[in-house]
């Protein structure tokens, strides 16, 4: 028996993220680059260690190689521990059976033995596809004070958007009496953030029961939460009020990157006591050439910039040649933008080439609310010289 841990975190990182199209064809959503030098999963991993939780299982399934290699022994997040640390947990062959993770709850069910090795009182369930900073230890305190079976982090969303979320309907003391998945007529604005703390003993019992139920989707939202409510377990909502963004769509991914340029957006990356860690790439400082103009943008290590950049996020090792223009865009690692190319209102994946004179995207003068007008160039795609990628187009999706 290993040394007991009070709380073990389980990070669900197996989702495909189909709505990100070309960006998630080769990698799982949590492995998508974000914010210049990070990947989406860095936020959750960093939150976990910053909250004092040092044992974390990362459940991978869809395109796991990138994530497996990235997480490695967990050292960049200080998660290389003698007892505990980071563990990548793909589905595996067991004595009686071996199968893919069928749903979020089944993924945890299949790893009951992993969790039991640490004999924890609590289990924190996380998903690796949100951008936010959160101290889970405060949520754990909240859970303990109420002696709850389950605590669910909720985020206050505008009522007109509430029907897009899973909603926790609560009593005055925040006890949950009902869970509604994307209701037409929302009764509350408490959107579930997909962050749960369970008292392990209770969750384990419900996971085993759910697994025995024929026809169950083995999903936390659809099955476990409603079942626990039905069984009369004490379940509470935990209000979170900081910056939080789901980056499941191209437009939200683009917006979240742009939020880093806006000091009013609420995401402050530069907090000394809550750093976001990432695996380092050993690149030299970036170079701004004699013909470059860089305005209101983020640039990181390994870049060579000699073009015009405005209102953009430029990732590690990007090369922007003289005479190229990049506006309102995010350019992912090691992409080359050749002379005279123009990129506007676009997301360009990693290792891509935008050849000279090509034009990618363009801001529509008055996009309708919710309209998807961001051009996307997939990873490793080459946009030939003097060609045009229309606003809203996606190049490189199979």
């Amino acid at each position, binding site marked *: 028996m290993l040394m007991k841990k009070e709380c073990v975190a389980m990070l669900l990182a197996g989702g495909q993220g189909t709505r990100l199209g070309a960006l998630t064809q080769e990698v799982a959503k949590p492995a998508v680059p974000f*914010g*210049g*030098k990070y990947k989406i999963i860095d936020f959750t991993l960093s939150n976990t260690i910053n909250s004092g939780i040092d044992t974390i299982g990362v459940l991978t399934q869809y395109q796991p190689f990138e994530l497996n290699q990235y997480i490695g022994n967990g*050292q*960049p997040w200080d998660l290389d521990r003698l007892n505990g640390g980071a563990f990548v947990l793909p589905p595996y062959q067991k004595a009686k059976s071996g199968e893919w993770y069928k749903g979020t709850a089944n993924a945890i069910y299949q790893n009951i033995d992993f969790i039991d090795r640490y004999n924890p009182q609590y289990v924190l369930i996380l998903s690796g596809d949100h951008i936010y900073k959160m101290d889970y230890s405060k949520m754990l305190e909240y859970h303990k004070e109420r002696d709850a079976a389950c605590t669910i982090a909720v985020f206050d969303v505008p009522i007109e958007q509430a029907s897009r979320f899973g909603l926790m309907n609560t009593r005055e003391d925040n006890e949950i009496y009902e869970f509604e998945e994307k209701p037409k007529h929302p009764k509350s604005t408490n959107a579930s953030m997909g962050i749960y703390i369970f008292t392990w003993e209770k969750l384990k019992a419900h996971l085993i029961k759910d697994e025995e139920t024929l026809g169950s989707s083995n999903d936390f939202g659809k099955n476990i939460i409603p079942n626990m409510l039905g069984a009369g377990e004490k379940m509470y909502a935990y209000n979170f009020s900081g910056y939080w963004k789901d980056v499941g769509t191209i437009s939200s991914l683009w917006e979240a990157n742009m939020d880093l*340029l806006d000091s009013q957006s609420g995401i402050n*990356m*530069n907090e000394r006591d809550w*750093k*976001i*860690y*990432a695996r*380092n790439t*050993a*690149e*030299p*400082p*970036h*170079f*701004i*050439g*004699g013909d*470059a*103009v*860089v*305005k*209101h*943008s*983020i*640039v*990181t*290590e390994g870049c*060579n910039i000699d073009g015009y*950049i405005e209102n953009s*996020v430029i990732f590690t090792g990007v090369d922007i040649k003289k005479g190229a223009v990049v506006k309102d865009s995010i350019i992912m690692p090691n992409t080359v933008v050749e002379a005279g190319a123009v990129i506007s209102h676009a997301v360009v994946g990693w290792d891509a080439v935008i050849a000279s004179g090509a034009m990618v995207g363009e801001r529509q003068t008055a996009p309708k609310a919710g309209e998807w007008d961001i051009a996307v160039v997939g990873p490793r795609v080459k946009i030939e010289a003097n060609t045009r990628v229309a606003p809203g187009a996606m190049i490189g999706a199979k």
Partner: protein
Amino acid sequence: MNNKMMSVLFASGNESKLNELTIHRTTASLPFGGRYRLIDFTLSNLVNSGVSRIGIIARSNYSSLMDHIRMGRDWDLNRKNSGIAVFPPFVLNTAREVYKGKIEAIYTILEYIRRSPEDYVVIANCNIAANIDFGAVMKTHLKTGADVTVLCSKGAVTSSRRMVVSKDKDSKINDLYFVETPSTEEKLIGLNTYLLSKDLLINHIENAHARGLVDFEKDILFKEVALGKLFAYEVSGYAAIVDDVKTYYNESMKLLNFDVREQLFGGSGKIYTKVKDSIPTVYEDKGLVRNSLIADGCVINGTVENSILFRNVEVKEGAVIKDSIIMEGGVIMENSTLAYAITDKQVTIRENRQISGFSTYPIVIVKNKVV
């Protein structure tokens, strides 16, 4: 013979000529190139060449070095059976004082060298910034049958006490000497980096120490020239030797040249350094940056030209930085102007200050000072 290399590095050297820049640190831990310390280049070259047992001899002021190196993890040197060993100075029973030269210093760790399983040793000072493949050096060493291979690079004698290497067409060294007066004439300059077999090193050090000799170059190498067993290995590409404030400034500024950066960083041999998890650099609306090398974590809202900014530097609105080097954590406040300046770590230049050195004599602002 196993043809494997270990290394012994000297963290100190030339501190007296580096003046204010080494008041608080060793030459090895002098910040260079926006996010590195000088020792990073030698350590990375060794690691990239498969050398994983590295002993570092420190003499004084080595707390910044220890803080930088830690367990060597950032260079993948936190190995079970090899890795980094830092040797602080300790007094020899006989001398009752800290070692005087390289010979005595190596003598104090002879047991460490003897016990190591590698058959060859790379000896180096840590004041070189270059990208060197020691595997290729080893091959040449075996091919020439040299006793000692002396690494060198073409360049002018830009500061005093540079070692000049003279060789024949087969790279056999026929003269070695120190130059006291700088000149612009191009010569082959020694990089204070040598490869030799462990047995020979132990033999030389024991003999020299027994005779009270201290200077590795003068007392051992120079005497070997006549035996015809010294060979030169010329490092192609950029190789900076940093041994005084002027060379520090000039070599730093060369990094603004694309070809120099390609030679130093562009190949497969990556240069590693301590990871600090700084955020990417933020360019605000009033930022205007030209021809400059900028590390992560900076917030720029002023003008920066022909300069190097290390990590986490803040340039406030209206500030103008030209031809300068701003080390980590520097804050240049509103409407201040800097030219030909080197500000050490954590220096703050308050509002409306004007500081200027000259291209041949850059002004140095000492660590932690507020101007």
